[in-house]
């Protein structure tokens, strides 16, 4: 982990509370998803975001309305952070008609045109050129929007990432490449899979500026996000943020995570946890009492429990949905 965490700050109470709520929502949501998976209500692959919450929450705080985002299959946190409803996300996880994709996409494939969330992509690295393409469209249309293209340290070794860096730099595309470095590409540590220690430095070969950020510090992420967004929005082309983070759970629900020690995970949870960090800030700055935070925890739990209930009660898609949405009909 890089820099020391922000301890004193001039961030407002409202902002801190907002980050706290958002991160806590993601964590509780993911814990619930893990539980529903264990009950057999969620099937297939399910990749939890627990531990990485500060990344999306910090960057969403730097985004403006209309900015776009696209990510990999570890996408639940991104959806909640950009304002998609917990009910719709959870119901998609259970494959029900109330899900964002009517139950036809699943954990890895969800979208929201309304919230400018362009997936949810199951193929490692594929979202990187897609993100640059969204930025290409924005530049073409001249609408001043910026796209966040999230990918992991594992995807950072995909060839298409560098094809995309090249074109994004060549064409000055307004895209922030967000490398969520959680240090393990499934079960392979960065040391064993990646030739360079600082992945963001790879942008230098293409003339793309970048920096490494402590991803367990939501304020640091937000500040870096603001720098990156300002760079992109001013027409200077892409920017790389390598956000050093950590995933507490396995790669997916079926991963026993034997490639790292329990102690390693425990140490980070105890010393680095992003939610605890903001909680400390709220308490030490006397913005909140323990009681206030408990009330928030209760609210969040209620939202998550409601989403689980919704996801159980929402009917399975009608059988004729099998045959819909394969082709779009031309507008008359």
């Amino acid at each position, binding site marked *: 982990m890089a820099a020391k965490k922000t301890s004193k700050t001039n961030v407002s109470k409202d902002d801190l509370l907002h980050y706290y709520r958002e991160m806590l929502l993601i964590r509780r949501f993911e814990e619930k998803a893990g539980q529903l998976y264990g009950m057999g209500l969620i099937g297939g692959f399910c990749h939890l975001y627990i531990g990485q919450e500060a990344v999306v929450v910090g960057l969403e705080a730097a985004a403006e309305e209309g900015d776009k985002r696209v990510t990999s299959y570890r996408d639940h946190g991104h959806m909640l952070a950009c304002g998609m409803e917990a009910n719709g996300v959870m119901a998609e996880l259970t494959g029900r008609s109330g899900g964002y994709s*009517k139950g036809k996409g699943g954990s890895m494939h969800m979208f929201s045109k309304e919230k400018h969330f362009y997936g949810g992509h199951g193929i490692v690295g594929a979202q990187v*050129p897609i993100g640059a393409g969204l930025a290409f*469209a924005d530049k*073409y249309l001249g609408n001043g929007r910026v796209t966040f293209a999230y990918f992991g340290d594992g995807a950072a070794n995909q060839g298409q990432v560098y094809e995309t860096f090249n*074109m994004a730099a060549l064409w000055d595309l307004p895209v922030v490449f967000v490398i969520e470095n959680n240090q393990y590409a499934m079960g392979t540590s960065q040391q064993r899979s990646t030739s360079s220690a600082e992945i963001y430095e790879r942008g230098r070969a293409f003339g793309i500026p970048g920096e490494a950020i402590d991803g367990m510090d939501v304020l640091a992420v937000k500040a870096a996000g603001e720098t990156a967004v300002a760079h992109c929005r001013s027409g200077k082309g892409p920017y790389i943020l390598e956000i050093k983070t950590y995933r507490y759970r396995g790669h997916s629900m079926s991963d026993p995570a034997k490639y790292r020690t329990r102690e390693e995970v425990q140490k980070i949870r105890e010393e680095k946890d992003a939610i605890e960090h903001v909680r400390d800030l709220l308490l030490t700055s006397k913005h909140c009492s323990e009681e206030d935070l408990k009330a928030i925890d209760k609210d969040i739990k209620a939202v998550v429990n409601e989403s689980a209930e919704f996801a159980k009660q929402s009917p399975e898609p009608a059988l004729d949905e099998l045959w819909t*949405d*394969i*082709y779009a009909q031309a507008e008359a």
Partner: protein
Amino acid sequence: MAIEILMPALSPTMEEGTLAKWLVAEGDKVSSGDILAEIETDKATMEFEAVDEGVIGKLLIAEGTANVAVNSAIAVLLDEGESLSDAASPAQTAAPAASAAAQTPAAPTSASAQAPVAVQVVEHDVPAGTSFKSLTVREAIREAMSEEMRSDETVYLMGEEVAEYQGAYKISQGMLDEFGSKRVIDTPITEHGFAGIAVGAAFGGLKPVVEFMTFNFAMQAMDHIINSAAKTLYMSGGQMGAPMVFRGPNGAAARVGAQHSQDYAAWYAHIPGLKVVMPYSADDAKGLLKSAIRDPNPVIFLENEILYGQSFQVPDLPDYTVPLGKARIWREGNDITLVSFGIGMKYALEAADQLAEMGVSAEVIDLRCLRPLDTATVVNSVKKTNRCVTIEEGFPVCSIGSHISSVLMQEAFDYLDAPVITCTGKDVPMPYAANLEKLALVTTDEVMTAAKSVLYR
């Protein structure tokens, strides 16, 4: 010793060209490497260099002459001191090649015992009084793209060499001038990356036309075509999809070997979420490409390098479109149905001519669109003719013909008087050697053999 300088082949598919300009005159001394002439192919104007030293004895072909066949003599090179009369008179092989349009039907087969039947050519379905113009397939594709770009600002073209170079196959010639570099975009040679960017641009509200220099290179982009473009509408529950066209030459060109000669029609036709178009004629190429660009789905548009230079009559209408998913009946007939698409139509039509000479009336169907596939037109035809042969250039296993054959078995079993025969390319990687390449491709003779077999003749 006088040497004949021959018209050179300057591309894999060049059969003739225009001798645009002589850069030497009779009596000039030349040494190897000197530029002798400018030769125009259908793709580019190329300089032609001397290989041998000598003096230009005679220019056999005047500059400006079109349709000069490859390998015909265009000049005589003499040794120094040698005169033209010393040299043996070169054979007069310099006559222009017959144009493609003037190809004569093959002679009637001797096996024919019946009187020839008249060929029933089906006319265009256009308003009475519509005039036609002759366009090559290349020009038709360019017109389609340009017309759509004029009428819709969100349509743009991207691909390798589409802008400054004017197109590797000159499809996009002149388009950079008209539309500018914002809308006609040269990409680096990174198919995987730019296909992904184009899919993202389509998600973001644009209508990209992506040119692959050939569909062989689209293999690098396959993940984005299938996983990103074709499946997103479904995976998003109908919220967003990829309205875009992937186009470029597909199938064998000539003598370019296994990695550059493959027909991907069946591959793409396999994928729900894609539409797949493979035109034969220029009028269909134009009308179908315009429809493909307007279609709100990802469309694979498979062209053919050998057909680019061929001319067809195209309706001269301000907005000529052809709907996707409708087969075209080129000839009406009663005795056998020939089903093909793309360059396979050339063999199907040639075979139909030969069959007519034998007294057999063949119905010829051009599928044009492989997904959605207009099986109804084929089934209805076979209910009338009771026999069917399919023709395509692709590999035999899981071919379009296999699928047609299966549909006919299920939907017209009682009407079939013979098994359906699928004529395809051979089940081998494309060889380079000229004789083997010829063997690997489907031929009109093979179509005739298949047709006679299902006719029990």
